[in-house]
């Protein structure tokens, strides 16, 4: 009886998690299929306008309606998501590589090097990272790569902290002592014994950063600092649709918003399940 009572909620939680994983995976497969296939089937002329068809409500011809210069919102959403995913994935990877290198160097070296590196990390962390990101994009002409640089160069700090902490905890294990006693150099201990141990955490940090980086791209574009305004990007679309929202035309804002929220939730949800598997004691929380 007590076993049944104990088993009940856990089983239900397990089923809920399976459902969440499947739903998230389905969303991501659909997203990937859309961003890979749609541009092949429906090329988009980013400069084209069609003033005769401006601000049509969703219909069979335009399922998501048209925007204030008559462009199809659905098509632009898919193209926008493509840019966002590209920026998100590349920026998250760049940030993870930098963060892992810095954190691993600090954690493996220890002592004074560690303290110095981590003080630098603290200094960078004390500046709001969106501000720092704006500073970086402002130095270049608008485009995809300045946005990637802006997000990548401001988001390695947390990964560096995670990797360093993990390295420090691994460093005190007996197998590291055994390696030192077996004549391994510092480099060998770091690369062969410590780094492989922190890669799952670093990989998780990278995945969790993808949604965050996507939001940053949108935020920068929304502020007018990210991609050129004619580029179909989710941030640009929401920015240019602000005025029409007040006039009661909800579709040019709602659909890009959903395209931003749903895939990022799916990625974050899968990453949360991954985190529970790596570290079952810590409950997963969404980090957006």
């Amino acid at each position, binding site marked *: 009886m007590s076993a049944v009572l104990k088993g009940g909620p856990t089983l239900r939680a397990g089923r809920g998690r399976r459902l969440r994983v499947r739903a998230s995976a389905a969303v991501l497969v659909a997203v990937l299929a859309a961003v890979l296939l749609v541009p092949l089937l429906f090329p988009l002329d980013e400069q084209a306008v069609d003033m005769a068809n401006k601000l049509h409500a969703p219909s069979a011809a335009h399922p998501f309606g048209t925007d204030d210069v008559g462009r199809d919102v659905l098509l632009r959403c898919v193209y926008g998501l493509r840019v966002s995913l590209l920026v998100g994935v590349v920026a998250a990877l760049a940030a993870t590589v930098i963060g892992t290198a810095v954190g691993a160097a600090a954690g493996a070296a220890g002592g004074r090097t560690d303290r110095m590196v981590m003080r630098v990390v603290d200094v960078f962390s004390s500046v709001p990272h969106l501000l720092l990101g704006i500073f970086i994009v402002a130095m270049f002409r608008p485009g995809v790569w300045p946005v990637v640089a802006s997000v990548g160069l401001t988001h390695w700090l947390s990964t560096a902290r995670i990797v360093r902490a993990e390295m420090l905890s691994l460093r005190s294990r007996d*197998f590291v002592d055994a390696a030192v006693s077996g004549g391994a150099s510092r480099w060998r201990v770091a690369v062969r014994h410590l780094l492989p141990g922190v890669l799952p955490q670093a990989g998780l940090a990278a995945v969790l950063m993808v949604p965050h980086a996507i939001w940053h791209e949108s935020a920068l574009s929304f502020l007018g600092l990210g991609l050129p305004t004619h580029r179909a990007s989710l941030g640009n679309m929401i920015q240019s649709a602000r005025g029409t929202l007040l006039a009661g035309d909800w579709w040019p804002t709602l659909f890009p918003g959903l395209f931003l929220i749903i895939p990022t939730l799916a990625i974050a949800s899968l990453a949360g399940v991954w985190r529970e598997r790596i570290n079952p004691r810590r409950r997963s929380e969404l980090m957006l």
Partner: protein
Amino acid sequence: MTADPHPALELSGITAGYERRAPVLRDVSLTVHGSEAVGLLGPSGCGKSTLAKVAALLHRPYAGTVRLGGEPARGWRHRAPRAQRTAVGVVFQQPRLAADPRLTLAALIAEPLRATGRGREATERVRELADAVGLGGDLLDRRPHEVSDGQLQRACVARALVLRPRVLVCDEMTAMLDASTTAALVTVVEDYRQRSGAALLAVGHDRTLLERWCDRTVELAGAGGGTDGEEVRSAPRAPADTSAG
């Protein structure tokens, strides 16, 4: 033996611990001669393992010197010259923690050879040592999580012997093991010691085992705030033939 001018391992005036104001060990001295086996006994928390780590140049003491074959230790951990570091083989209490979970047992045993640029000898040495510690063929291809504690500790003993150390430090080597594995590993260590003339420092709290295994035993008292390593007890020699030294 006491006349030996260059004992294999000589710890003198060691004060060590993890907090400078409250060291675990205070002014401890201990000498182990070549081909001698010394058992280090004491209650938990008295600093046995710390002393073992100091002897293996893995933990820097606050004061005192360590000499290996008469030569003072010139650093600790990575600062110790590789030749000094590898002159001491270490076996740890918990094989799970002492084995890198990503290496197969064969790679685990060969790791010190690869780390010191002698990877070419690996295949042959691994086969030789695996035979000696009793690890059968397919076990060598498994990873630590696929073998038992006893099998893993056999691999760890093989790893400690692979560079032919002149001093072997066994820190509670058999605490996690059943009687037959304990007997097998003690035999492996004794064989090595008799063939190579290496010194052995066996740390543990199993008085019966250490008194039968070692030439003499030394006790660390567990007094609060520090320990004096007086050699309070000398046990009879083990029945094994250790007169060669």
